[in-house]
């Protein structure tokens, strides 16, 4: 008993240190965004001065708008393509070129971004020489690049959801005479819908987050939010970026906590229903 206590104390201590390590920098970033002083680390009293500066700067809003536009379009296309890819990999058995296909699906997950960015830029330049498209780099090229890596994440989510799911319902529908296409639309799709939603959200945030690939494939005049942040903080700390970071962190954190809470409640309810139904069965 004594040993177990000691070990769990060790585990709790490491976990607390680990979590502190993960969270302290972000908490400090948020606190310093309310600093009056122009020099970020020198405390000059509480103020919302830098939020005002932020709200008045047009280039920030332009970058935010571009990023949101890219992220939305990217998330929709990536969810569509990723879902198709996940379905094909799990439900279609073997088909021609399956190994290459599954390789191309997992590779973007671990590919260093500098390589993906460079190769896509060189592709766009080659295409322009060959067929005259894309004539200018910006929204379209960034979105295409983002779809290419986000669809891989969506495909993996769909794949793991499909493999974890029993095929009973699909088989039942088939036995009742539904054609495979009908089964896909009426049975499989609704079952993987939560996975598609999770994939959409992940694709959206991945796109909002990406700096390197966007830097490579973007052209003059198209600056995404991470590109703007990066160009400003390269030379040091910037109080207005602290304010922007605070807004982003709070929006994302609220979304993630809300989603997690809803999922937790749903799971609890399901467990409760399951327990109740098994009790009824026993009675």
């Amino acid at each position: 008993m004594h040993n177990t206590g000691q070990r769990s104390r060790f585990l709790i201590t490491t976990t607390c240190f680990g979590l502190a390590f993960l969270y302290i920098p972000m908490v400090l970033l948020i606190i310093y965004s309310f600093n009056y002083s122009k020099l970020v680390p020198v405390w000059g009293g509480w103020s919302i001065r830098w939020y005002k500066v932020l709200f008045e700067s047009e280039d920030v809003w332009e970058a935010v708008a571009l990023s949101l536009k890219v992220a939305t379009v990217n998330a929709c296309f990536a969810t569509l393509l990723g879902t198709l890819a996940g379905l094909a990999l799990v439900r279609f058995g073997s088909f021609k070129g399956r190994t290459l296909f599954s390789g191309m699906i997992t590779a973007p997950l671990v590919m260093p971004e500098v390589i993906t960015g460079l190769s896509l830029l060189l592709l766009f330049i080659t295409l322009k020489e060959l067929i005259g498209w894309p004539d200018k780099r910006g929204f379209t090229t960034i979105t295409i690049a983002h779809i290419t890596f986000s669809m891989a994440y969506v495909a993996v989510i769909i794949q793991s959801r499909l493999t974890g799911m029993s095929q009973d319902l699909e088989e039942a529908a088939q036995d009742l005479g539904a054609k495979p296409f009908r089964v896909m639309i009426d049975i499989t799709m609704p079952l993987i819908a939560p996975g598609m939603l999770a994939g959409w959200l992940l694709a959206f945030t991945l796109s909002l987050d990406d700096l390197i690939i966007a830097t490579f494939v973007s052209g003059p005049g198209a600056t995404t939010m991470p590109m703007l942040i990066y160009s400003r903080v390269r030379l040091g700390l910037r109080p207005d970026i602290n304010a922007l970071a605070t807004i982003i962190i709070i929006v994302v954190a609220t979304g993630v906590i809300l989603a997690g809470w809803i999922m937790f409640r749903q799971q609890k309810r399901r467990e409760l229903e399951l327990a109740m139904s098994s009790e009824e069965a026993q009675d």
Partner: protein
Amino acid sequence: MIDTDEIGSPEADISSSLKMRLFHTLQHNWKSVVVFVPYFWLLLFFLAPFFIVLKISMAEPAIASPPFQPMTEWVDDGVVQIKLVFENFIYLWEDDLYFKTYINSIKISSISTLICLLIGYPMAYAIVRASHTYKHILLMLIILPFWTSFLLRVYAWMGLLADQGTINNLLISLGIIDDPIRLLYTPFAVYVGIVYTYLPFMILPLYANMEKLDASLREAAADLGAKPVTTFLTVTLPLTIPGIIAGSLLVFIPATGEFVIPDLLGGGNVLMIGRLLYNEFTSNHDWPIASAVAIILLIVLVLPMMLYQHAQGKQVEG
């Protein structure tokens, strides 16, 4: 639900025959469409670009736009002459800078991976053994940074590590040091940044692996008289090796090609290959060399990437 198969309802017939026909084609060829669309996309935007990088890595640099010489030349009689130049690779081999940078990148990412494992393993273990409610909260706390901007998390460390930053201010006000110590723009800062941003990537696969472990195995070992340390070393650790491999590769591979962290936290003092590639491409405008650097990086990482794919495939399909 039974009439779902009756696609030829009169309503649809009248409203549009085109829709019907489209539906019909879809119904018969839908499987090919489902495979073809993402397949084609990946061939065009993922695989083809690598061949272009490979091609340009063997081109001669030139002061032109694009800045390399064409490899195919029309010689008379319509014969195409293909020029392949390995000079770029020879140049990389002979210039010490590139070799050192590759080695340095691998060193930094290996050490960071090890540190992530040492911190992440006990954390994942603690989460698995936590009670139901705590488990959800802890998982949430691990996943949350994963969703927030990577760039901002790196930026947050600039504020902590700067000469006038939080850590130095704290140490000075406590009287431990008199003058600020240099933390930002050192290799130390790069290690901190990599461990910080990639820690969740280590914890999550480890957690997924440990969650599936059968607690009765541990209990059996304890019942048979094994001490906790022995149980850990002979039962738990060997069974969590798949998680260790997956987590380590998820940290090691992207960390080796990392660009933002060495740039923002390492300044000019820490050379990493991702940053060198970027500089060759943007500042020096030397596309063939940048492409050659990318090809070599890919060769260095291809083995770990295949290992990861193997592990991932086993987990998803098995």
